[in-house]
């Protein structure tokens, strides 16, 4: 979206040569060698260049959490991070959780407890919840609530998401692992 150049003569657009940087990082356990334009966000890199569309665009400015990913063990808004800053780091996205047993317990709990409606916030919620379970195998309600403070959901009212996270911590699979 943009504003018209009202009664003015706009500058001719210089076809800008794209400045790109080389990148090496681990994505869902696999080493990546790629390049990214300097100003590109991690979200754009993942979605548009690498085809990983499980991470969602909801606002582009760190307000909604739909783009939550995990970088070196910490959850991050992919829309706020420059792709160039990924160099040398390790990234996990929702696609990387496919085989993770904690994530499996979470997926089952999300379905079972009705924590998914439109599903657009769900990948971000799943990333936060997996992070939480990695830190604390059996989170209580307060911990579950704290984990998703930065993630918006317009459909569920959050209650079912919290229930699902707590339940996933109680699930036999995750108990067995402790």
């Amino acid at each position, binding site marked *: 979206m943009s504003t018209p150049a*009202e009664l003015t003569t706009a500058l001719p657009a210089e076809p800008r040569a794209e400045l790109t940087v080389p990148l090496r990082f681990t994505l869902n356990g696999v080493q990546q060698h790629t390049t990214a334009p300097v100003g590109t966000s991690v979200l754009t890199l993942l979605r548009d260049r690498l085809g990983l569309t499980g991470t969602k665009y*909801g606002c582009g400015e760190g307000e909604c959490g739909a783009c939550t990913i995990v970088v070196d063990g910490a959850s991050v808004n992919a829309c706020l991070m420059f792709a160039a800053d990924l160099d040398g780091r390790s990234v996990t996205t929702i696609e990387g959780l496919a085989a993770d047993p904690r994530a499996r317990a979470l997926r089952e709990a999300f379905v079972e407890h009705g924590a998914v*409606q439109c599903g657009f916030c769900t990948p971000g919620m799943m990333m936060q919840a997996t992070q939480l379970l990695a830190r604390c195998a059996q989170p209580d309600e307060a911990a579950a609530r704290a984990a998703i403070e930065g993630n918006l959901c317009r459909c569920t009212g959050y209650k079912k998401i919290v229930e699902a996270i707590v339940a996933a911590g109680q699930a036999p699979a995750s108990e067995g692992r402790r």
Partner: protein
Amino acid sequence: MNDAVKDAVKNRQPASLIGQRITKLDAPEKAAGKTRYVHDIHLPGQLHAAILRSAHVHAVIKRIDVSRARALPGVHAVLTAADIPGEHTHGIVIPDWPSLIGVGERVRYVGDALAIVAAETREQATAALDLIEVALEPQPVIADPVQARQIDSPSLHENGNLLKHIKVRKGDMAQGFAEADLILERTFHTATTDHAFLEPECSIAQPTADGRLYLYVGSQIPYADRNQVARALGWPDERVRVVGQLMGGGFGGKEDIAGQIHAALLAQATGRPVKLLYDRHESLIAHPKRHATQIRVKMGARRDGRLTAVQTELYGDAGAYASLSDKVMTRATTHSAGPYETPHARADCYAMYTNNPPSGAFRGFGVTQSAFAVESMIDELAEQLGIDPVELRRRNALRVGSVTNTGQLLHESVGLLECIDRVDSEMRRRAGNDPFRARPTPGQEHRVRAWGFAAAYKNTGLGGGAPDRAQAEVELYEDGALEARVSSAELGQGLVTVLQMIVAEEFQAPLDQVRVLVMDTDLTPDGGPTTASRQTFVTGNAVLQAARTLREGLVRVLAERFDAPPSQIRFVEGLALVNGHTAPLGEVAAIMKSEGHSPRALVEYWAPATQPLGAGGDMHFAYSFAAQAAEIEVNTRTGEVQVLTLIAATDVGKVLNPLGLLGQVEGGVMMGLGNALTEHFILEQGVPFSDRLARYRIPNITQTPEIVVLHVEHPASTGPYGAKGVGEIVSIPTTPAITNAITHATGVRITRLPVDQEEIALRGEGRGR
């Protein structure tokens, strides 16, 4: 199959799925992040679109020069109004909304589109916008509906600024007020609010080799999209196919057509697929909002609390274009006497054009606003009369035999009293007998708690004489799969799961044998709009009828084939049982085909007829009812309000899936909470300040209270298994329950939404106890 199994199957009583806790059909994929939304689709060769929007609130366009933008490398097309081959305007009710504003025409809000660009990349398309030169002549701005009705205000549309004057008349107001022992009068204001669905709008238009256009979009009304896009292209409807995608939320905000027409025009012009994604800023600025209103309520009652007269005057900010304002404000008006019986009622509503973003459908459909006003007044009435606010509601509550303010005799399915009683006893169980008294927290006297109460009703379905119908098709395949096909929309509310349950129930087939195809105008018949809490009822009924028609077809064929009376044929666990024979459903499909019948049924269901407003009789075929109580805590130093507990009882006729219903209630309550406390789409002389999520606060987890959900079932005889709508009613009483609680805690009357928490701190001072 061995005999033991056969016996087991034969002796099994069909188990009903209805009322069981069923997990959502599409939840596993969504939880794995595998669900594809429109933005996730990438078509080979696709171009990216960008829209030049006015940014002027009100102006006449003098000149648009796109030549330099066209010359930019990577740009494939730059279109203005002059390039539209078909109709220039769109609109679901009144087509008054120009898809592009041309030279000599008028922009009426900041989101109006002047030119559209398709380029190789999004960056190029956006860069091209900067090269478009526009000359325009600013006009005086109409910023609110009251101003719009003033005689010297400029006219925004040919027929002036009054979009509609809506009237409700019952009885004789002079008599009603003469009979009152107490008359109260007060004016309320509600703010413009936004759906803030998490997924911003996206559409992709794809020209096909055979000269058609496919449109991938998340839309609440696929057939209306098809029609509106086809009209803009100058094509017959059938040449366009809407391939609806799962949506990241809608809540009414994806009923009006958004970028669909723009994407389609660019695809037609370039011959390439075109993706148009709104960023959040554009989404907030462009799409229709919930109406800001001014509502004056005058209410008369006898000493015993019985209402004698309710008079309301509403102003609704329709914004720049008609959208659904006519319908939304009609609903606000007809519900403006609350869920109560009053012998004399009068309401006048002025839906006014302004230079704000258009207002349209938003969960609650106008009733959210009028319920706040009327429920606040009812509470004040109770206080002045010295009657318990719950008791006052009970005395006036609609019940079977009541006549509404529009003259409708309610003859069944009115569970309001039970909702009130259930919430009341749960509230008093927790709070004791004086829940509405302010209770300072011991040791922290500036923190004051109190409860508040509210009730509401909301129609199911379009009503008002509009034909309300849906087509549905159910087919049985030779592999045993059953498929339901409807064009209705899945926004996350769980429609596909309800339809899956209905088909499984009718065939006594396992759930995983049933699939549901929705939102494709080539493959699914027209189910009408996904609005007005109508899908469970209308499309549910259509699928139910289609399933039953198909089942009867199977029974006829089986009866003939096995020479058995139809009454002896049963369906259990995906099998047909006849005369000691057991046939899997797939086999029955094969039998039908071999005999020249096709194993599918297409029906068109018509909901019971309704009457237009003013005609009396049944304006709606069903209503849902609700009562809620909220316990809040106010920090009287800062004015900060926290909702601690919310008890919600809803009469939904019949609970089809308690898990889905819980999700609707909890999500709806949180929307009502946001509407009460934080949500305000701030406009200054038509210019949005709330153009980012950071400036439009929807509730997060820290605001989620304990939510206690109570189900009330007063079946609607014409609903599927007795069910009626639920999507909107759950959110309506929340706001006034919270604001009434704030009044009880602080003594401050809330007349304006969202609650100004600083003002509470100031005005509540001295009552800090």
